[in-house]
């Protein structure tokens, strides 16, 4: 960022403050690049890249937010004007005044830990990598194979009227593979695997090799073969053991989204929905069993790690649910006073650093970061299986449907394994389970140790109007739940 641009930003800040704004910020996306590769039955059917650049400006005027965005870098003053006009219009129908809270001045930068920037790697090297996996996926029982890679690079400069100047360079690396074939009823079954890790190490192109992602090909191939002759999961109440590949979605949908403060306060009602959690429940609500410890993590190798949020608040690690008790929620700085007002007491001290925007042209909203569940002391996956009399192990989402207040859910999974008297047995296809969020989390009765903990990446969390897709992370151990409704009548 050159001095001329920085000077212009400061001039615009001074101008809108003089016009009556209490706070303002600007995000300048120098480079927002993506590369998407899709190998379909060995053919590179998808081969696309994109580049975005532009600025997003937000101002707070008489307690109301206004936002504007443009790709025309020379139009900064006009962009500020549009944001101010939008805020003035919003202030005509005022609610609880938004407030930026205490001044938080930050300087510095955050860079994702990366050895090899994937955007510097030649296409041939990437397609060779994909083809090597595809070759492993080929087998006589496989009818359809896919391998995909998706890379992101974002270089963002952030400034606000607190005096904050911060630079983020984020690199994300997503990958998945899948195999499909028709089962003995002629209906296609699928097994898939996404790139996941342990939250450590680096997340450049090297991660694909370091994580032995390709090593999953043989496993999903063999598991699909079992699915093809497997019976459908019969309906019934039983224990459910969620592997991290499914547990992450359970956490994402019934803890993460339920604890977003904008949903809690009713700002997402007309689109994404509300939450069964209310502000006065913070510090009081028994969300789950004592084995449940969920937290917003600063997990180094994760798409939910960014250093400084889009309110200018440094990212930190803090508990959300402690031994089953709700102790905090995901928040941005503008809603803290309102949450305390609605609760009738101070339930929150400061922003949770969860204000995030997916692009220069979208305003920041409350978002998940790394919503992790801490490992427990119930041993390894084998230990949990050995301790299970009648249960089902489930992995990898096929479908997810959640009540509008996150109060109930229905999930379908790619694969399930029966557990009888402590022994993992036959495979079931078309497995589903459903429940009500709070009773379900109260039935959490086993939490695996660190050997079971995996950092799962989510590349496609949708929320907000205008709509936004965000990348988040979930570090999840193996979890067992008692008395769960499984299968369909």
């Amino acid at each position, binding site marked *: 960022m050159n001095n001329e641009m920085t000077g212009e930003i400061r001039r615009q800040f001074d101008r809108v403050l003089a016009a009556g704004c209490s706070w303002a910020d600007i995000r300048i996306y120098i480079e927002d690049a993506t590369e998407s590769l899709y190998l379909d039955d060995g053919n*590179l*059917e998808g081969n696309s890249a994109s580049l975005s650049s532009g600025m997003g400006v937000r101002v707070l005027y008489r307690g109301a937010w206004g936002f504007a965005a443009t790709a025309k870098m020379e139009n900064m003053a006009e962009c500020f004007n549009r944001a101010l006009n939008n805020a003035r219009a919003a202030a005509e129908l005022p609610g609880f005044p938004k407030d930026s809270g205490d001044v938080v001045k930050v300087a510095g930068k955050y860079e994702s830990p990366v050895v090899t920037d994937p955007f510097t790697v030649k296409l041939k090297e990437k397609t060779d990598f994909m083809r090597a996996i595809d070759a492993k996926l080929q087998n006589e029982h496989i009818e359809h194979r896919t391998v995909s890679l998706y890379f992101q690079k974002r270089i963002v400069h952030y400034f606000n009227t607190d005096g904050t100047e911060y630079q983020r360079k984020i690199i994300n690396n997503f990958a998945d593979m899948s195999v499909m074939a028709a089962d003995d009823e002629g209906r*296609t079954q699928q097994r898939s695997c996404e790139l996941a890790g342990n939250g450590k190490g680096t997340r450049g192109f090297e991660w694909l090799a370091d994580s032995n992602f390709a090593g999953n090909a043989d496993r999903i191939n063999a598991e699909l073969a079992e699915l093809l002759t497997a019976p459908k999961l019969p309906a019934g109440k039983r224990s459910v053991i969620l592997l991290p590949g499914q547990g992450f979605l359970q956490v994402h949908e019934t803890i993460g989204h339920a604890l977003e403060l904008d949903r809690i306060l009713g700002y997402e009602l007309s689109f994404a929905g509300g939450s069964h959690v209310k502000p006065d429940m913070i510090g009081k609500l028994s969300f789950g069993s004592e084995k449940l410890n969920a937290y917003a993590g600063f997990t180094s190798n994760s798409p939910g790690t960014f250093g400084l949020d889009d309110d200018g608040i440094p990212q930190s690690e803090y508990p959300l649910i402690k031994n089953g008790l709700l102790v905090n929620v995901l928040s941005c700085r503008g809603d803290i006073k309102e949450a305390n007002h609605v609760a009738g007491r101070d339930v929150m001290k400061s922003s949770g650093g969860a204000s995030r925007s997916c692009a220069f042209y979208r305003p920041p909203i409350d978002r998940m970061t790394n919503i992790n569940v801490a490992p427990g002391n119930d041993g390894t996956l084998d230990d949990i299986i050995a301790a299970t009399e009648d249960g089902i192990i489930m992995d990898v989402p096929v479908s997810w449907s959640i009540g509008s207040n996150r109060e109930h859910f229905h999930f379908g999974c790619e694969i399930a394994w029966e557990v009888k008297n402590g022994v993992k047995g036959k495979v079931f296809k078309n497995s589903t389970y459903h429940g009500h969020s709070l009773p379900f989390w109260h039935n959490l009765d086993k939490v695996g140790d660190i050997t079971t903990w995996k950092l799962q990446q989510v590349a496609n969390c949708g929320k907000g109007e205008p709509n936004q897709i965000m990348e988040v992370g979930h570090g999840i151990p193996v979890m067992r739940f008692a008395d769960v409704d499984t299968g369909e009548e």
Partner: protein
Amino acid sequence: MIDSKIKDIILKARGEARKQGITAALFLHREDSNLIRLGNSAVALSTSEELTRFSVEVVNGRRVGAYSINADVNSLDIVMDALNRANENCLESPELDYQPIPSEVEEDTADYTGYDPQMISLTAEDKTTVCSKIIKSMPDKYSFSGSWSSGETEVFLATTVNDNCAYRKLSDGVLKIVMKNNIAGWEIAADQTGKNRADFCADAAVSHINALLSIYENNPGYQTVIGKQPVVFGPDAIAEMLTMALWGGFIGRYWEEKRAFTSSNSFGDMLFAPSVNIYDDPACPDTFGYPFDFAGRKRSKFDFVKDGAFAGLIYDNATAAKYGKKPTGHDIGTMDIVFATGDAVPGLENALAQVGDAIYIPQLHYLHLPDPTRGQITGSSRFNAMRVVGGKFAAPLLSTRVTDTILNIFGSITAISAKSVPINISSTYGRRSPEVISVPEYIICSEVRISDVADSF
């Protein structure tokens, strides 16, 4: 018409591509979007975005490559840079084992039929005034949330295959107001959608809410029973299920891969009740009417289900190339889907009178497909759902989960309203993509499986 400077730049780039022997499609998407978001009876956020996206797809023999930019597209250098990057991607790419189908604009088109300049002049202040009127019409004890998005979208497509260009300029808007009783927990919603400024009106929203309010105010929430029962579905729910039905049953690629619930069927097989007709029709006045797809194909009426029978599958360019089929004009994120009206007397009161005792589900939240190969869907009731007793609304319905197959639901239809309703299913993920589905005001299904019920709304 598209800004003449930008058009000239794109056409010059097309000329350069031809000189270099590059087969390319050059696509521009420009939007001017404005939105206010309501929360707790206030404007919680007001936004505006002016965005231009330019993308290039290159086909070279059996190789493909693409590149897109979201930036200030104001010079030939920028456009040529995107073209060159797409071409480099293509040249470095391995060959497919089938021949890809390049985009081609079939007919020179400039379409303004969905454009209302008054809609574009709608300001955040105007929207705030309308919303304020709605809110002030109702008692203070209720809390309002919602959103109102409006804007204009321009798309322009040129390819090196011929000299034709396809252009479309469209205005659109969608308003959703949700009124909540924060103590009882219920929510009543009112929606409006359209291409014109005149499609939006505070009085209509207030009237819609008031029509349901006394039931909500005077009756506790009703928890229905798990199991099969008759259901009257309202227009948003029909649109949601229709979207899932198309996704799960009528995408050529999924059908070819035996992932569709129609994969074991052939055209002509009965899927749904004989009264069901589903098609894509850009001439339908309810929809936004896309005259061409983004591969340049002219769009026309396309049957999916005719008199209950399987009639068509969507093949985009890539799928058509892979499976040796002809593209159907669906290289487009949005369609003009119609669930045809039937012969049942319009008016919800007539639907309720026909059904006697049932539940009414006008909207479904977070629908998904647990078993796509069987067309099994699951989702839960949301706004405005009711218990129906003796042909009248009796109580608001607590959150109710429907888990059943599309084949059962659309197969058990006993009545389809003769009145159509436009339902906005637009999204702004990535870019402004206006889309409306035309559906009947109601359908009555004799037997739908309720799999779960909650004790809250």
